[in-house]
């Protein structure tokens, strides 16, 4: 039963998504998909979190909020961009108020496509993120600096 080696805690922030991906992230926590069986917990405090799940593209106003949350998270940390909007800006790419995907503000490790991203995709994304987390951790322990 050891699908995951570690129990990562996630923090979710809705940049400027339409809610579609948000409610799918929430749906992951509820009985049908229940990521808590892997020990994945949703936390509201960035200092507790290992994985930053972010939905939606980034606009001028929440740029700082996103950066703030990211910087408050302890190392090692992984960013998972959920949904097309977070990957590239999606259908709102050409809107005057959207700067683009999340990677315009903070480095993104895993992209989860889909509009809205399906809960299964999100689980896959978080599982992949755990691999990245492990790599970052070993790199950190070897003293290769913070990546």
């Amino acid at each position, binding site marked *: 039963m050891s*699908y995951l080696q570690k129990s990562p805690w996630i923090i979710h922030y809705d940049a400027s998504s339409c809610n579609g991906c948000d409610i799918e992230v929430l749906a992951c926590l509820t*009985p*049908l*998909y*229940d990521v808590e*069986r892997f020990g994945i917990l949703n936390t509201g405090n960035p200092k507790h979190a290992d994985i930053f799940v972010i939905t939606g593209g980034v606009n001028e106003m929440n740029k700082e909020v996103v950066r703030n949350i990211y910087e408050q998270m302890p190392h090692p940390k992984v960013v*998972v961009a959920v949904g*097309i909007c977070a*990957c*590239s800006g*999606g*259908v709102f*790419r050409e809107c005057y108020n959207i700067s683009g995907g999340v990677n315009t503000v903070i480095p993104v*490790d*895993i*992209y*989860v*496509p*889909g*509009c809205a991203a*399906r*809960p*299964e*995709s999100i*689980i*896959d*994304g978080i*599982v*992949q993120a755990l691999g*990245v987390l492990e790599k970052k951790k070993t790199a950190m322990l070897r003293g290769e600096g913070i990546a």
Partner: protein
Amino acid sequence: MKAGVMALTVLKNLIKGPYTSRYPYAPAKVSPATRGYLDVTIEDCIFCGLCRMHCPADAIEVNKTERTWTINRFRCVICGCCVDYCPKKCLHCEQSYTVPGTEPVIAQYTGPVPEEKPVQPGESSA
């Protein structure tokens, strides 16, 4: 009374088993109607570019001279708009979804070289 209700719930749960889908072990739940990812039957494509023109997310690139049809999977919103517009009905949605990744996936399809038949019809502007 309350205890009875509770006992019934416990019993029901014992018989029914867990509600949770065992996702990574069991396959993902899809229905025949599910729009997962966009696929093209490249042999039928006439590279008219209607799908590119109408894509709300600008995910599709069509190059007529090189006979390539390219989709940026990390931009496609799988709305099915292009499927409606395609004059040759060579676009369709598959049920399984694109796997998450560390890099954007851009899939390129190259059409076969046409036989002597001249390539053109169906290219009216929308």
